[in-house]
């Protein structure tokens, strides 16, 4: 059997498969289907400093080979997370990683510093696709300055592994990735959802409550793969690949493109046990092709 262990900075993963934020709850929702201890990690729901009600219903629309969502980071805030959710997930034997969001660098930093106190949370993933309220609501992750400001602030407040999740809605993803690396990120993960829209032709209205939403699922995979490949070729830190991964073949493509690990998102909705199937499928691929370690295939695609 091939060795499937990988490292993301100081983080040891038993295999390169994680689940993506916002699609896997707190992991607890999937425990009937998946032995969470068999995953490289679980990235829990987006958490903010203060509680958020999220956007009104309807929050989703089905698309060709994908879906749009505008959930809007509904969560009860970091204090609630620490007091009520953390005790339920702290003994899960995998890397439980918290996805952190905010509307100002200070919010992000404050939220991160609270999570820094939790012994069983070894890393956070910063979602920098959130709107910057002080700068007209433009997402932090869409400019080098915005991304740098958040990562710098969080780096000072947070001592464990810091993963920064990049937005694909940018002109040059490599510029942002390099800026984030310079600002102190230990790893980058990409991609977050692509901005999209759906229209109901009978009602002649936009389907989602706020008009637009984030596109995810197999339809975004080629875009995600291209971006992961590009970023992996310019940064020195590990890259985590995300976007439309639905089976082991998709996962292997991302590893070949340069990702050290991958996250599975929307595919969990179609098959709640898909994550462990992907773990097994990667093993089979490695054995079939005689690789001794998963590390041997990372980024080997020219």
């Amino acid at each position, binding site marked *: 059997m091939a060795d499937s262990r990988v490292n993301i900075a100081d983080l040891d993963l038993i295999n390169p498969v994680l689940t993506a934020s*916002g*699609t*896997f*709850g707190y992991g607890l*929702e*999937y425990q*009937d*289907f998946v032995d969470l201890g068999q995953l490289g990690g679980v990235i829990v*729901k987006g958490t903010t400093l203060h509680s958020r*009600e*999220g956007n*009104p*219903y*309807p*929050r*989703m629309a*089905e*698309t*060709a*080979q*994908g*879906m749009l*969502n505008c*959930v809007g980071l*509904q969560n009860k805030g970091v204090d609630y997370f620490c007091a009520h959710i953390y005790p339920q997930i702290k003994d899960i034997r995998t890397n439980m990683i918290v996805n952190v969001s905010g509307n100002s660098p200070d919010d992000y930093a404050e939220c991160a510093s609270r999570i820094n106190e939790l012994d069983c949370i070894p890393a956070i993933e910063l979602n920098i696709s959130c709107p910057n309220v002080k700068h007209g609501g433009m997402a932090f992750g869409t400019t080098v300055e915005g991304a740098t400001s958040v990562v710098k602030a969080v780096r000072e407040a947070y001592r464990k592994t810091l993963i920064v999740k990049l937005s694909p809605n940018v002109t040059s993803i490599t510029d942002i990735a390099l800026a984030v690396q310079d600002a102190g990120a230990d790893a980058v993960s990409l991609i977050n959802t692509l901005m999209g829209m759906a229209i109901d032709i009978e009602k002649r209205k936009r389907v989602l409550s706020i008009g637009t939403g984030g596109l995810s*699922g197999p339809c975004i995979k080629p875009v995600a793969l291209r971006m992961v490949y590009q970023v992996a070729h310019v940064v020195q830190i590990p890259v985590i690949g995300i976007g439309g991964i639905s089976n082991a073949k998709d996962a292997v493509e991302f590893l070949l493109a340069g990702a050290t690990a991958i996250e599975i998102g*929307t595919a*969990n*909705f*179609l*098959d*709640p*046990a898909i994550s462990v199937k992907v773990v097994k499928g990667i093993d089979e691929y490695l054995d079939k092709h005689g690789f001794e370690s998963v590390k041997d295939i990372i980024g080997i695609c020219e």
Partner: protein
Amino acid sequence: MKKYVLDLKVTSVESLGERYLLLVAINPAGRLPKMFPGQFAQLRIDESKETFLRRPISLHYVDYKKNEVCFLVQKVGKGTASLWEKRPCSTLNAVLPLGSGFTMPTSPQKKVLLVGGGVGIAPLLFMGMELKKMGVRPAFLLGARSKTDLIRLDAYRAQGDVYVTTEDGSEGEMGFVTQHSILQIEKFDCIYVCGPKPMMVAMAYYAKSTGTPCEVSLENMMACGLGACLCCVEDTVDGNVCVCKEGPVFNIDKLKW
């Protein structure tokens, strides 16, 4: 309650008129888990290339002796329509049981009314069967556009009294369920409703005006069905809550209608 992903095997596919389908399936791999009225399954749609997500469908009934579960499906769009392609022996992949069901009445002495409109009658058969088991003889008030949309009445009659309204008067009393005379004649201890939203809102109003406890089953659009994605929320007195997990059945006191 433990949830399962099962490859069910279809044993019978029956068209009921042009718009409804009765799909019966067994679990070939073992015993079906215990399930409750008002709960639902997320069905994988294998026959359509156009759909992407699963579709939530209520448990029409569960027969543990035969190890079978039944779904009553209305043809709405591409996903539900493609279930018509199922044949005996087809695989029906289902995640179940999902959600929390109806609250059973506290004693068999209770007078129970089950109100359904359109395909919303589906979960009420299972509810009627469980009520009958505990010694309650429920009354069903079923509404449809026209006689041809009234399906499976005999199955409902086997559980209790059936009252009917049609919008065109082709069967039962003419009008909407909320206009049926039984609501004036009888006083019920609890009401359970599933159907189009305007109908549920009207019944909730009736229940409030008569001080009758009432539960409704919502049909918000869903992605995961597991309480993980927060796509299916309803704005309640407790804020936005997941219909797939906290519901689909809600006491009307929780809703902001």
